[in-house]
């Protein structure tokens, strides 16, 4: 058995045993902490990859290498300003994103606007996806289309008006109630099935990791 597989097996087994043995239980928390620390170390790899890819593009004068300079510059400026807490009102002991620091300025006026704008592009994407995908092609597509349609309508003021003419005894069929029913009944069934399936998938995946079946990223293939 190769060393990495032994490590995986041991670590996982200890953590599983710790589930049932109270004196070992603190290990579970400590190991999650360890994970975060190692993930923070991994940032060095990320930085090396980012700089490496763009540096090679600049050196080889790949088409659009000018943008790579932009990327490297914005990366390095942000990194240096942030790591050294340059211009931070609290000094080196203060908060990393203290108000009034250049790092916070970059966050507020460069990071946030581009980030939020890209996020808001989803409004357009949702619309075009709805236009394209919601067609009465077959039974499944039609069911999805009709439900989405009802929900969309139910979220506007029209939702109350469309079915307002129904007599009081038909109350459950008023759109707001119908929408609520869809969310509580069929959706519950669907979500639960997905969750149960996911649980089974994760159990199998965990076991395959622990047993070391077909995991080339631990070195050596099978």
């Amino acid at each position: 058995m190769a060393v990495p597989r032994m490590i995986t097996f041991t670590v996982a087994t200890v953590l599983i045993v710790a589930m049932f043995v109270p004196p070992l239980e603190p290990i579970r928390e400590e190991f999650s902490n360890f994970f975060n620390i190692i993930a923070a170390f991994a940032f060095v790899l990320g930085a090396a990859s980012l700089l490496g890819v763009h540096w090679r593009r600049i050196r080889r004068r790949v088409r659009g290498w000018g943008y790579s300079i932009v990327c490297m510059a914005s990366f390095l400026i942000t990194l240096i300003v942030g790591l050294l807490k340059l211009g931070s009102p609290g000094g080196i002991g203060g908060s990393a994103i203290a108000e009034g620091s250049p790092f916070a300025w970059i966050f507020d006026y460069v990071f946030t606007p581009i980030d939020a704008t890209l996020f808001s592009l989803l409004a357009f994407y949702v619309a075009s996806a709805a236009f394209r995908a919601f067609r009465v092609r077959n039974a499944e597509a039609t069911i999805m289309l009709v439900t989405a349609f009802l929900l969309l309508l139910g979220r506007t003021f029209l939702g109350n008006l469309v079915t307002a003419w129904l007599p009081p005894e038909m109350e459950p069929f008023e759109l707001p109630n119908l929408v609520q029913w869809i969310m509580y009944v069929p959706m519950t069934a669907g979500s639960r099935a997905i969750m149960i399936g996911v649980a089974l998938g994760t159990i199998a995946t965990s076991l395959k990791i622990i047993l070391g079946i077909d995991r080339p990223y631990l070195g050596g293939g099978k």
Partner: protein
Amino acid sequence: MVSLAELARERLAGRRLIYLCILLSVTVPMIWKISFKEHASPMVKNVFDQVESLPPGARVLLVFDFDPGTEPEIKPMSDAFTRHLCLKGAKLYCLTLWPTGPVEIDKVIRNVLTPEFPDYYYGADYINLGFVSGDEAIIAVALTSFQKAFPTDAHNISTSDTKRLPIMKWVENIRSFNLIIECSGGYPGLPEWIRYAAVPGGVPIVGGSVAVGTPELFPYVPDQCVGLLAGLKGAAEYEQLLLERYPLLERPECRVALDRMGPQTVAHLAIILFIIIGNGIYLSQKRRGRVGT
């Protein structure tokens, strides 16, 4: 016979037309200030009543688990909650488990608390505990010892220092609070606070969530979670209730979500229209024997 390139171009043009319609359906109602009166749903009413029934001096944990990315949906809720709590004279304990969340607390303090409630004093009536990393594990710690989970406030003052932070005098753990209000933009969010704080601590919890996360939260209501505001519509309904109860609040900054519902509604109608048109085209093509995609 249309060539493939032509078809792609046609599709691209259609896509741009959709984009333009959406942009207009959002911008035009905003400039013309089209807005609709909201009708509060029972769930939002439950949330409102829960806050409304707080006694003066109630201790409320106000969690800001969102960031600038989800701000358009959640910030109107956190603002409305803050106003409502201050009007009820509650003590506010603000914190976030999101690394990008502290700016949101700062914004509420700067734009709502300080200007609108000048008699709210830091350390006595409200406290900003800032960001603490650790997600649900930290909630579990707070369940037994609040000071251990949140050793300092955002200004690095120890939370055990009750001389400088008298508001901490009455807090030992999660159970010390009368209510938890969670403004949830994703993970960690409402499910974590319900599972690790509200249920084991026996503290009522209400919350607001982005629309995308709401369907997963419905199963918690009303047993484990008193009620929740679902997306901007929930926020707008809450604002409507707040305005009806406190007419003094009739100011533009107190109806942000209500104003934003105008463009929302128009955009929804536009998408509904797209779906109808799309199917119209599809069916007519099908009849002519040319099945589109």
